[in-house]
């Protein structure tokens, strides 16, 4: 086990390397805050960056939002999804740009958790299904950063998983002194993400600790478990983690609902969420 000082040093190192928000987000946030801008104006602002536009639309049209009609323009995306979700999509595409080609399987895992979060949220009648999907998409944000910025530690972590058969989160703590949920939290805080995105990132392995967004966190916790059970993508290790009773109580699923969620999951994941790479 590393000493706390080593862990602290690694933490500082890592935080210095945290990706910064794309300048576009800043511009848009200011436009939204000033309240003088309509969805169309903001759509125009984003459209100036064509690569970004294409990515946002691709994500908006991907399986996890499940709109029956194609989202054709940024204005439409803003109206349908709301500004927070579009902002999240921009964030997501910039984060996953970091890991281009490095871990297609972590991307597949994240997209699948987003899809299943959306399915669960719909089944239990939550209103903000898109935002819950986004929370699912971002839940392993910390893993992305670890993969990109701590390459050597990453190898030690992978080794512990492969050789010692240790769950990835324990391996992270063994090597670094902290785990991907904390890294995700630091990034979410530095990006000023709202609590309903931050808490599922921080607490998806320990949902009872979520205070501000317990339901979001419970949905993402269960979605992560279902995706690992189904075996889509690679979240770092192959095992289904323990299911939290507190989270299940919040979701209040009966057996009919549970069955329905699994049926829809199998239907949707056959479309392979991984193909919507950004």
């Amino acid at each position, binding site marked *: 086990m590393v000493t706390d000082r080593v862990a602290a040093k690694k933490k500082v190192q890592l935080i210095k390397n945290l990706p910064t928000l794309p300048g576009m987000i800043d511009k848009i946030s200011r436009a939204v805050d000033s309240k003088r801008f309509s969805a169309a104006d903001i759509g125009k602002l984003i459209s100036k960056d064509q690569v970004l536009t294409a990515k946002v639309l691709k994500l908006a049209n991907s399986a996890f939002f499940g709109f029956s009609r194609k989202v054709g323009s940024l204005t439409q995306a803003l109206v349908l999804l709301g500004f927070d979700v579009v902002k999240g999509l921009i964030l997501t595409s910039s984060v996953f740009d970091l890991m281009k080609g490095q871990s297609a399987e972590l991307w597949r895992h994240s997209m699948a958790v987003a899809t299943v979060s959306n399915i669960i949220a719909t089944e239990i009648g939550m209103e903000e299904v898109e935002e819950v999907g986004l929370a699912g998409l971002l839940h392993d944000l910390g893993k992305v950063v670890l993969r990109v910025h701590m390459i050597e530690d990453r190898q030690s972590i992978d080794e512990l998983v492969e050789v010692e058969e240790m769950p990835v989160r324990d391996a992270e703590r063994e090597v670094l002194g902290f785990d991907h949920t904390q890294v995700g939290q630091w990034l979410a805080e530095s990006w000023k993400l709202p609590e309903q995105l931050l808490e599922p990132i921080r607490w998806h392995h320990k949902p009872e600790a979520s205070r501000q967004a317990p339901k979001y966190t419970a949905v993402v916790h269960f979605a992560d478990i279902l995706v690992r*059970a189904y*075996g889509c993508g690679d979240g770092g290790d192959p095992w289904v*983690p*323990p299911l939290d009773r507190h989270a299940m109580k919040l979701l209040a699923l009966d057996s009919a609902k549970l*069955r329905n969620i*699994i049926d829809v999951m199998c239907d949707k994941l*056959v479309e392979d969420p991984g193909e919507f790479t950004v």
Partner: protein
Amino acid sequence: MIKVQVAKLVEGQVLAQDVSRDDGVVLMTKGRQITPEVISLLERLQVDSVVVEGDAFASEEERQAYVDQAEKALRMRFSRVENDPLLMAIREILAAKLRSGCILGGPKANGPATDTSEKLLKPGGKRS
């Protein structure tokens, strides 16, 4: 069901999901049988791939081999939570889906998702 490129469709397969255009207009409804005419229509409509019933196995033996292997992998994934009755129930639902033709793990680019990596087939392992 499985997603198949239009170029690789075989006569007699059946659409398992509606085929829609990008703007949501349904071009073909599920249940339709694949014929040479349907294939050429799909090509003219510039559809890349469709979801059809069944799976991507050449023979019943091959299918059975996949199901056996996938079920083994499924049990391995659940090997550390066998004391949780709810998770065990979920495992059984997934095993039943597997036996009824569902491809777990989503399709990979080349055929069915048969996971051959050693990592995913290791038994139990050390608990944390």
